[in-house]
């Protein structure tokens, strides 16, 4: 039998009826049996009592009158009754009469009664009557047969009732079976019942419900078809919008990605960028820019009209891509580049009575893997190198450099997060006393293996990736904290960008105030970068001077060495560039430059510092040139902790 059958309502009702039947019948059977057993026993007891009650006066009178013979005769008569198995009359311990029955299992009970003297309550004798169980057993047997017959009849009635219920519920089962195949599109054949009962009402309601569902499903189907159509249209529209550039109506960047993905490692890519398009936008306005882009797109489309192997798309703003669906020959590739360059340069775009000429730069790759990245790299490199076209070449190792840069950015971020950017301190010695009078705080990165990484490996990357300000903040915070309780001056390098960053300046001021190091602090401003924002730098130096800080021009003499800087900025120290110092013992010209710087500084009462003192000869030379202070590996290397005397 299936699990469903067990769970069906009719089965449960039937089982309930059967269980109820058995419980009730067992109860009735046991109760009746017990009651009737007692009743039958009582009947027999009453019969025996009646016999005893009947014969007792006769026995009594016979005993009373001493009529023993009569007594025997009477009791013999009593013994004629087959229900009486034995009688015993005892008087004062003497047995007057006794008939004992040896088959004890046939005795139902022994009735014992006192025989009273006639006319008084005085006990005269005792009668014991052994009563047979024949009638009792007969009654019980008859009763059991009757009861079993009754139970059988009742059982049959219950079975018939169960079958009747089963039959009544049959339509429900059939409907359930039908409903299992129900679907809004398929009408079920629910036959109405002849009888008017709850089930027929349910069937009728189901029929009506089915009609409504069917009708609703039809409506829904129509609606769905309509919506599906709408969705398809919208999808087409969205797909179009997704792949088409709104402005130029060319395929967009996403379309190019998809095409590249579907190119199965075949083809070549050429990216071109309109040179100085920003200036067109700025000069002629946004509308002119958009107009140029639209017209340029049209022009490009026209120029490659005959090139069936090429598809044109707009990558972004002023960048367009030409995807070769199959790899062309180098010659073909270069022909396309040169033709386009020439024709675009000859093209004049007219806008608002102005003639606008444009030039483009190409970056290309004939390698079919990662072509977008490679073409982009080539384009950027071409721009940097001011070339109209550059083909991507693995030998350029541009990708390697990019990868390394990215790794360094990751390393830097990780070091910042894990607090592995630390200041190292290199002592600056007084040339005359040879004592450390100040310390330059130099940035170091502690690698995950504990090794110390010099800044030349990551400082440029930090500048490009805009991490540099974070490094400056760390250096300021940690250096100020380190020298908070040390009685010596210390210098920190600041870039021009740091100085013109108002938030950075605010941070510097707060740090100085926080650690109370204004009298000890020296800012080394890098001169190599060229100082264009004099006013901002001067304002910074002034404000720092007001709180007691000093400033120094770092790497003086390396690049844009400008004595005017020194005059305008009112600095306290001049640090002569290491590239000069390291050659001071070999190159006479260098010596002259250094002497000039020192002489100039002396006139302005500025202190001079020589860096990169790396050997005895340089040391001696620096001393001889009367430079006030010096630092370098010959004297002391930068250390994590300063050596305090």
């Amino acid at each position: 039998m299936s699990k469903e059958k067990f769970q069906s309502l009719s089965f449960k009702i039937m089982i309930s009826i059967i269980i109820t039947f058995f419980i009730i019948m067992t109860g009735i059977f046991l109760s009746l049996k017990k009651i009737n057993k007692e009743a039958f026993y009582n009947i027999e007891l009453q019969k025996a009592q009646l016999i005893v009650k009947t014969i007792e006066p006769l026995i009594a009178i016979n005993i009373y009158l001493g009529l023993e013979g009569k007594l025997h005769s009477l009791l013999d008569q009593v013994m004629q009754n087959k229900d009486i198995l034995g009688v015993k009359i005892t008087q004062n311990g003497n047995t007057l009469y006794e008939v004992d029955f040896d088959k004890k299992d046939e005795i139902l009970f022994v009735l014992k009664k006192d025989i009273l003297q006639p006319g008084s309550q005085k006990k005269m004798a005792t009668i014991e009557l052994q009563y047979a169980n024949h009638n009792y057993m007969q009654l019980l047997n008859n009763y059991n047969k009757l009861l079993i017959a009754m139970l059988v009849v009742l059982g049959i009635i219950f079975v018939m009732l169960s079958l009747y219920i089963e039959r009544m519920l049959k339509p429900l089962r059939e409907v359930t079976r039908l409903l299992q195949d129900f679907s809004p599109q398929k009408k079920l054949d629910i036959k109405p019942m002849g009888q008017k009962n709850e089930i027929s009402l349910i069937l009728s309601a189901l029929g009506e419900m089915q009609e409504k569902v069917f009708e609703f499903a039809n409506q829904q189907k129509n609606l769905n078809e309509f919506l599906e159509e709408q969705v398809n249209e919208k999808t087409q529209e969205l797909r179009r919008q997704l792949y088409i550039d709104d402005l130029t109506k060319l395929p967009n960047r996403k379309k190019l990605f998809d095409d590249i993905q579907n190119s199965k490692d075949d083809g070549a890519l050429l990216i071109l960028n309109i040179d100085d398009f920003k200036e067109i936008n700025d000069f002629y306005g946004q509308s002119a820019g958009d107009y140029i882009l639209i017209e340029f797109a049209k022009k490009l489309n026209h120029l490659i009209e005959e090139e069936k192997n090429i598809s044109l798309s707009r990558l972004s703003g002023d960048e367009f891509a030409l995807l070769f669906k199959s790899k062309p020959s180098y010659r073909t590739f270069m022909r396309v580049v040169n033709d386009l360059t020439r024709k675009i340069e000859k093209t004049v775009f007219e806008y608002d009575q102005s003639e606008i000429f444009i030039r483009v730069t190409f970056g290309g790759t004939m390698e079919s893997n990662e072509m977008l990245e490679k073409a982009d790299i080539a384009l950027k490199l071409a721009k940097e190198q001011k070339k109209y076209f550059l083909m991507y070449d693995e030998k350029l190792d541009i990708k390697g450099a990019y990868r390394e840069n990215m790794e360094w950015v990751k390393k830097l971020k990780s070091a910042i997060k894990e607090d592995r950017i630390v200041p190292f301190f290199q002592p600056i010695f007084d040339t005359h006393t040879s004592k450390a009078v100040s310390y330059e705080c130099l940035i170091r990165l502690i690698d995950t293996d504990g090794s110390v990484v010099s800044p030349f490996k990551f400082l440029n990357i930090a500048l490009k990736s805009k991490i540099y300000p974070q490094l400056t903040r760390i250096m300021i915070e940690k250096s100020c904290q380190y020298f908070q309780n040390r009685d010596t001056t210390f210098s920190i390098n600041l870039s021009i960008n740091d100085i013109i960053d108002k938030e950075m300046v605010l941070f510097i001021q707060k740090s100085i105030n926080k650690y109370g190091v204004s009298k000890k602090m020296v800012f080394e401003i890098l001169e190599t970068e060229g100082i264009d924002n004099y006013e901002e730098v001067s304002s910074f130096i002034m404000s720092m001077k007001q709180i007691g800080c000093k400033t120094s021009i770092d790497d003086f003499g390396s690049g844009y060495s400008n004595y005017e800087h020194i005059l305008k900025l009112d600095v306290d120290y001049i640090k002569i560039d290491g590239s000069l110092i390291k050659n001071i013992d070999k190159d006479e010209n260098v010596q002259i430059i250094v002497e000039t710087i020192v002489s100039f500084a002396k006139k302005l009462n500025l202190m001079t510092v020589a860096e990169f003192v790396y050997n005895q000869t340089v040391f001696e030379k620096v001393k001889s040139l009367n430079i006030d202070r010096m630092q370098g590996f010959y004297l002391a290397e930068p250390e994590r902790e300063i050596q305090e005397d």
Partner: protein
Amino acid sequence: MIRVLFFSLLLFESLFGYSYDDLLLRAQSAIYPKIVVLDKKVSSKLVDDKILFTVVYCKEDHESALFVKQYIQNKYKDGVGKYPISVDLVEFSQLSKETGASALYVLYGSKNDIKKAAEIARQKRVISFSYNLENLKYGLLFAAVIEKTTTLYLNKEYKNIKSIELADFLLQSVKFIDKSAF
């Protein structure tokens, strides 16, 4: 010859009294007082708060009557049931309505004597016992006879006597006898 013999016997009887069966006499002496108390109206028949068991006899049977008296007195010296009992001996000639009695025990006597005793018993509304079964036909009520067993006979006339009300079980135990049976 036969007539002579018959008369001789009658003469002998009159001279030396009737012969009594000792066993029967004892049995009756034992049973009859007990039957007296089985009369539901016995309390109204007491004489000086006693059961007066009056033995009526022929002059010649004095010894037998005395035997009965002694036997009863001995057997029931503590009374019968809750009643004390005394035994009087009265000859037929002395018997009258005034004779005190709670019950009469009538020994052998002439037909007339028996009838007289029965009549007086009826008048006095007391139970009358007979030594001889046959005397019941003259109106005496009870007679105990030793047959296979001791059997009590009750005169069917009893049903007409309202003044005596015997216990039911006694009635179940007795044999009723009618005049016609003799």
